[in-house]
C-alpha cells in the first residue's frame, strides 16, 4: 500500500474498481443472496428447517466430511507439488516458462466429463495402464472408480492450477537470497523451511484457499467418474436441483449455503496470515 496516497488518489482508485465491484454484485452476490434466501424457505415458510435437516442427517454430514477431506488433501498435495515444479521452472528461460504455462493452463481447466473419460481410457477396467500394470503384476487392486481414483483425477487439475497461482510468487526467492543462504552454509532443508516457506507463506495460503474452494465446488468431474456413489456435497446438491425423479431446490440451496460457510474457516485463516504477511512487508 502506498502510505502517502492522497485522498484524490484513493478516490480515483475506488472509481477504477467500480466496474468489477458492479459485476461482482450483479452476477455473483445477488445470485448468492438468492441462494441464501431460498435455503431458508421450507414449505413456503422461512425457517432453519432445511439446514437443520442437513445437519441432523449423518448421511449429509458425511458428504461434508468427504468433500472437505478430498479438497484438503488434493489442495495440499497441489501446493506442495507446485513448489519443486515452480522452482525448476524458474531456472528455465522465459520462453520455456511460457510454453509450460500454456500446458499448465490447459491442465488446470481440463475438468468435467472429458478428464473423467480420459482417465477411464487410461486407468479404467480396460485402461491402457491398467492392462499394462496388471500384466506386470503391479496393479494391486487400484481402480479409477474409487476414492483414490477420484483424488488422482482431482490432483490432475489441481496441481497445474497451483503452479499457475504460485509461480508468480517465486520471483521473491531471488538469486541474492539463494546466494546468501548458500554462503551461510544453510542446508537444502533449512533453505526450504526457514527461508522459502516463510517468504512464500501468504502466497501459498492464498493459493491454497482458492484450490480448496475449487475442489469443494467441483461437481461435473466427480459425477462423471463416480456417479452418485461419491458422497460429496456437490453431488447431493446436483441430485436435488438437476435430477430427473424429484427436486428440492430449497434444500439444495441450504446445502450450498453450508458449503460456503465451510469455506469460512480457510478464508479466515488465510486472512490472518495475509494480514500478518502484508504488515511485515510494509
Amino acid at each position, binding site marked *: 500500500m*502506498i502510505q502517502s*496516497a492522497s485522498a484524490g*488518489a*484513493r478516490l480515483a*482508485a*475506488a472509481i*477504477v*474498481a467500480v*466496474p*468489477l465491484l458492479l*459485476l*461482482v454484485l*450483479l452476477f*455473483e452476490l*445477488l*445470485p*448468492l443472496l*438468492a*441462494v441464501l434466501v431460498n435455503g431458508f424457505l421450507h414449505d413456503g415458510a422461512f425457517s432453519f428447517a432445511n439446514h437443520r435437516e442437513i445437519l441432523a442427517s449423518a448421511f449429509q454430514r458425511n458428504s461434508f466430511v468427504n468433500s472437505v477431506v478430498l479438497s484438503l488433501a488434493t489442495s495440499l498435495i497441489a501446493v506442495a507439488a507446485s513448489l*519443486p515444479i515452480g*522452482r*525448476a*521452472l524458474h531456472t*528455465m*528461460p*522465459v520462453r520455456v516458462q511460457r*510454453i*509450460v*504455462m*500454456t*500446458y499448465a*493452463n490447459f491442465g488446470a*481447466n481440463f*475438468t*468435467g466429463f*472429458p478428464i473423467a*473419460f480420459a482417465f477411464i481410457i487410461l486407468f479404467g477396467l*480396460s485402461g*491402457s495402464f491398467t492392462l499394462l500394470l496388471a500384466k506386470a503384476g503391479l496393479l494391486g487392486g487400484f481402480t479409477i472408480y474409487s476414492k483414490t481414483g477420484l483424488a488422482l483425477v482431482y490432483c490432475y487439475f489441481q496441481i497445474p492450477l497451483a*503452479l*499457475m497461482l504460485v*509461480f*508468480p510468487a517465486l520471483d*521473491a526467492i531471488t538469486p541474492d537470497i539463494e546466494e546468501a543462504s548458500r554462503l551461510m552454509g544453510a542446508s537444502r532443508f533449512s533453505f526450504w523451511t526457514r527461508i522459502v516457506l516463510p517468504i512464500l507463506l*501468504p*502466497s501459498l495460503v492464498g493459493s491454497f484457499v*482458492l484450490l480448496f474452494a475449487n475442489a469443494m*465446488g467441483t*461437481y461435473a468431474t466427480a459425477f462423471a467418474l463416480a456417479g452418485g456413489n461419491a458422497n460429496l456435497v456437490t453431488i447431493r*446438491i*446436483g441430485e436435488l*436441483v*438437476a435430477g430427473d425423479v424429484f427436486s428440492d431446490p430449497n434444500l*439444495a440451496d441450504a446445502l*450450498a449455503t453450508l*458449503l*460456503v460457510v465451510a*469455506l469460512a474457516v480457510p478464508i479466515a485463516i488465510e486472512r490472518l496470515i*495475509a494480514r500478518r504477511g502484508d504488515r511485515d*512487508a510494509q
Partner: protein
Amino acid sequence: MRSEKGIVPAIVVWGFVALLLLPAAAVALNGMTTEWDGTVLPTGFTTAWFHNLFEDPRMSQAILNSLLISTATLVLSALVAVPAVLAGHFYLPVLDRCLAVLVILPYAVPGIVLGLGLLRLYAGNFGIVLTGTPWILILAYVPLGASFYYVPMKNNLRAIPAREIFEAGYLVGASDLAIIRSIILPSIAPALIVGFVMNFALAISEFVYANLLVGGLFPTLQIFMNVLRGGSGHLLSGVIAIYFAILLIATSIVLWATRPKSAAEGQ
C-alpha cells in the same frame, strides 16, 4: 547459475508437461480409431471422425461461438479486474480485503445453483433479459475469473520491491499512474498472463452456465460436446481433441502477443 542445476529441473518440468498431456493424448487417440476395446493401444486408425466433424456445420458454429465468448471474457475481465486489484493493493486496503473473500466465494458454490440464481434474476422477471444471449455468460464469467487475477497478482506483488520502486519513481517526479504503468505492470507480467489465459480457458471450458442460461440458442464447444455424448465415443473424443487444440492454440497466441519486447526484459 542455470547450468549448475543440471538436468534435474528439465526432467521435472518436462516430466510434468508429459503427465499433463497424457490424458489429452489418450482422448485424442480415441478420436482417431475405429476400435480400442480391451487393448493397451487402439487397433485400427481412421481420420473419418475428424472429417465428419469438420464437415459438420455445428462444429464450426460452436468453435466460433466459443472463441467469441472466451475472447470477450478475456478482454472484459482484464479491463475490469486488473485495475481493481491494483487499486486495492496500493490504495484501499479495505477493498483489498473484500476482494480477497469475494473472488473465492463463487468457487465453492456449484455452478448449477448459482446458474439457477442467475436465471431467475436475468430471464426477464426484473425487466432485464440477458439469458439466451452470450452476454449473460461473458458478464457472469468475469466475477468467476477475477480470482485468477487477484491471487497471482497478489502473489507477484508481494515478490517485487514495490516500496522501493515507488520511492525511486517519486524521486524522478513520476506520477503514481506512470510508475504503475511503466514499472509495476511489466514487473507483474507473469501474474497478468496467468490471468489472461486462465480467464480465456475458464470461459471456453465452462458448461453449466452456458447450457442452462443460453443452451442451443448460442451453442458453445462444451454444449456441442454434451450433445454428442449420447453417440459414438470416437466422435465425442474427436470433438474433445479439437477443443483441446483450440485451447492450446489460443493460449499460445495470448502468450505470443504478450511476449517480452526485448531480450533484456525477457531475462
